[in-house]
C-alpha cells in the first residue's frame, strides 16, 4: 500500500483544502495520507525536506511525497495531479 506524506505550512490557509484533495485522489489506490504541519512538527518535516531544494532555492507552501519519494509541484497545479496519480500508480521513475 502506498504511503503519501504531505508536508505543509500552516501559514497558507488553502493547504487544508489541498490536503483533502490529496486524500480524495489517493483513496482509490488505498493509500494512507499523512499530513505534517511543518511548523509544529518541523523535525519530522525536515527529514522529508532534506533531499529537496525547499528552504534553499524553493519555498515550501505544500509538497507531497509518495513512499518517501518527492513529487515536485504544487497540488493546485493540474500537471502536479497527473504526476501524483502516476506516482500512486507506481510510475515516475
Amino acid at each position: 500500500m502506498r504511503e503519501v506524506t504531505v508536508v505543509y505550512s500552516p501559514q497558507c490557509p488553502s493547504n487544508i483544502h489541498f490536503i483533502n484533495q490529496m486524500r480524495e485522489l489517493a483513496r482509490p489506490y488505498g493509500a494512507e495520507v499523512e499530513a505534517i504541519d511543518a511548523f509544529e512538527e518541523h523535525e519530522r518535516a525536515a527529514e522529508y525536506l532534506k533531499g529537496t531544494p525547499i528552504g534553499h532555492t524553493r519555498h515550501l507552501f505544500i509538497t507531497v511525497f509518495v513512499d518517501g519519494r518527492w513529487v515536485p509541484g504544487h497540488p493546485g497545479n493540474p500537471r502536479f495531479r497527473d504526476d501524483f496519480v502516476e506516482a500512486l500508480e507506481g510510475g515516475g521513475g
Partner: protein
Amino acid sequence: MEILPLTEETMGLEMDLCLRFHPSGYAVPETDAVEGRRAKEGFLRRVFERVRPAGFVAVESGEPVALLELMPREFARRNGYITGELGEDGETLTIACLEVAAGRDRKRVMDAMVAHVVERLDLFAPYRAVEVGAFPRDVDFHPAWVYEKHGFEVAEDRGIALVLSVAVPLAGVGNGSQCKNGVRCP
C-alpha cells in the same frame, strides 16, 4: 487602495485574499476554508507575539487587494521558506508572502506594497534586517526586481534564488509617525 497593518483586526481580510481572491482564480470551498482559517489564525497569533504588525494588507471597497506578510526568520525557516544563513536569526524578519488578488495590476500593486514596507521599516525595530527569498527572473512570485528597486540588496546568491536583505533603522532613528492605529511601536 488603502494599506493597513496586518494585525488581529485585519488578518481575516488577508486570509480572504488567499481563499477567495487568489491570483490563480482558485477559490477554496467554504467547508475547507473554515479549517484553513483556523490553522492560519493560530499560526498568526504566534507570529504577533514576536512581531506586530506582521506585514500589511491592501484593501479597496472592503475587499483585499494585496498582502505582504513577514515573520521571524526562525518561523519562516520552519515553514519551509527560503531563508538566509547570514546574520542572527533573532534579529531577522523574513518576508514570506507578497501576493496580489486576481484581476489586479500585479506589478504595480507589488511595487506599492514593497514601497510601503520599506518606508516603515522603523516599525520593525529591534529587528535589524528584513530579508526575502526571491528569484532573479521576471516571475510572478517574489521577483527580485521589486525588492531591489526599493533598496534590498543581494545577501546570498544561490543561482536560481537570491536572499535579498535590507537593514531596519535603529530604534529611535525613525520619526515614529507610523506608530498609531494600535500598532505596537519600537
